[in-house]
C-alpha cells in the first residue's frame, strides 16, 4: 500500500520527536514493501501540497504529539481546512506524549475516533505511547533505544493497515504505574530528575532557576 503520512507536530522537523518516531516507523513500513509520502504540518508552505495529497490518497496516517489532552492547535487548524473524504479512505494515528502512562493519552484517542468520522474516513486505530519527551535530548544509540521499537510497529501496520492487533495494544505499556513504582519515580523526580533537567537547561543557556516566577507569585 501507499500511505500519506502527516507529521502533525507544530515543532519544526529538525527538533520534532514525532519526526524521529516516524523515521523508525517508516523503516518498518517500507520493509514490508509499502511506499509513503511524508509532510510536516509545522511548515505552512507545505499545506497546499498536503491538501492535494489528502484528496489523492486512500491510506492516511497522522502522527501526533499530545498537546493539552488532544491534538495541537496547529493540526486542528490544518485539518479544519481539508475536504472530508467519502468514507472509503482509511485513517490511522500515532499518538505520542511526554508522560509515560497510557492513561494520559486516552482522552486524545477518544477524540481521534470521532475525528475520523468528521473527516469522512474509516478509523483504523491509534498507536499509543508516552515517555517520549527525552527523544530530542538524545542522539545515536540513546535515541534509538526510545524510537527503535516504532520500527516493529511500522512493520505491523505495513502488514495489516491498522493498529487494532494485540502487539499494538501492548506497545502502549502500563496504563498507570503500580504504587511502588510511583513512589520510586516520585523520589527520582525530586532528586536526579531535577538535576538532569537543570543540566539540560544550562546547556540551553538558561540563567534562571527552572521554577522561576517571571510574573510574581
Amino acid at each position, binding site marked *: 500500500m501507499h500511505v500519506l503520512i502527516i507529521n502533525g507536530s507544530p515543532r519544526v522537523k529538525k527538533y520534532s520527536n514525532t519526526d524521529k518516531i516516524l523515521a523508525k516507523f517508516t523503516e518498518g513500513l517500507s520493509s514490508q514493501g509499502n511506499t509513503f509520502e511524508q509532510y510536516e504540518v509545522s511548515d505552512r508552505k507545505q499545506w497546499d501540497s498536503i491538501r492535494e495529497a489528502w484528496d489523492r490518497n486512500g491510506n492516511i496516517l497522522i502522527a501526533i504529539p499530545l*498537546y493539552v489532552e488532544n491534538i495541537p492547535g496547529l493540526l486542528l487548524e490544518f485539518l479544519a481546512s481539508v475536504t472530508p473524504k467519502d468514507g472509503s479512505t482509511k485513517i490511522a494515528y500515532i499518538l505520542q506524549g511526554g508522560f509515560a502512562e497510557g492513561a494520559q493519552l486516552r482522552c486524545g484517542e477518544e477524540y481521534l475516533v470521532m475525528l475520523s468520522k468528521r473527516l469522512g474516513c474509516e478509523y483504523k486505530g491509534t498507536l499509543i505511547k508516552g515517555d517520549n519527551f527525552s527523544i530530542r535530548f538524545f542522539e545515536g544509540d540513546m535515541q534509538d533505544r526510545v524510537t527503535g521499537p516504532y520500527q516493529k510497529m511500522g512493520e505491523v501496520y505495513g502488514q495489516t493497515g491498522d493498529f487494532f492487533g494485540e502487539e499494538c495494544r501492548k506497545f502502549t505499556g502500563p496504563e498507570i504505574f503500580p504504587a511502588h513504582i510511583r513512589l520510586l519515580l516520585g523520589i527520582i523526580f525530586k532528586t536526579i530528575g531535577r538535576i538532569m533537567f537543570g543540566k539540560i537547561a544550562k546547556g540551553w543557556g538558561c540563567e534562571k532557576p527552572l521554577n522561576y516566577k517571571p510574573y510574581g507569585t
Partner: protein
Amino acid sequence: MVLIVNTTKDTGITQELQAHIGNKGIEAQIVEAGDMKISHCIGCNYCWLKTPGVCSIKDDYEEILKKIIKADQLWVISDTALGFIDHKGKNIFDRILPIATMYLKFKGDQMRHVARYKKRTDVGLIVTGEADMDYLKKWTVRCALNFESESLGAYSKESIEEAAACMS
C-alpha cells in the same frame, strides 16, 4: 477574579454574559481575543528549559497569561471545528505551558508537571457552534489537570445562563 477570554469575533456573547453576572457583584475581566495576534504553541520547550515561565513567542498571549495566573476562573469562549473547539480556542490552552515547570511529580496516580504558581485557576468552556458536548465536558475535566484545578464544565452558547451561574 473571573477571566473570560473570547476567541470568537462575536462580542455579543460577552455582553450577554456581563448582563447575567453584572448584578452578582462578580469581578470579571473580559479579553476580546477574536482579533488578537495569538500564535499556536510551537513546542519549543523554552518556557520550561531556557526562559522559565516565559513563552518564546512574542504576541498578544502574554497579557492573557499574566491574567490567568491571577484568576480564580478561566472561561474560554470558542467557535468549534471538527466536533471540538476550533484552533483559536485550543491555542489559548496549548499556550498555558509556562504556568507549569519542567519538574515532574505524581498527582493521584498519574504524572503531572509541578505548577509554577500558587494560584489554582478553574477552567470552563463556552462554545458557539456544533460540537460533541459530552466529549468537550470530558476534555475540560482532563484539561483542568494541567491547571491542577477543577473543571467548571462545557456549555453551548444556548446554555450561557448555566455557565454564568457557575461564575463566582
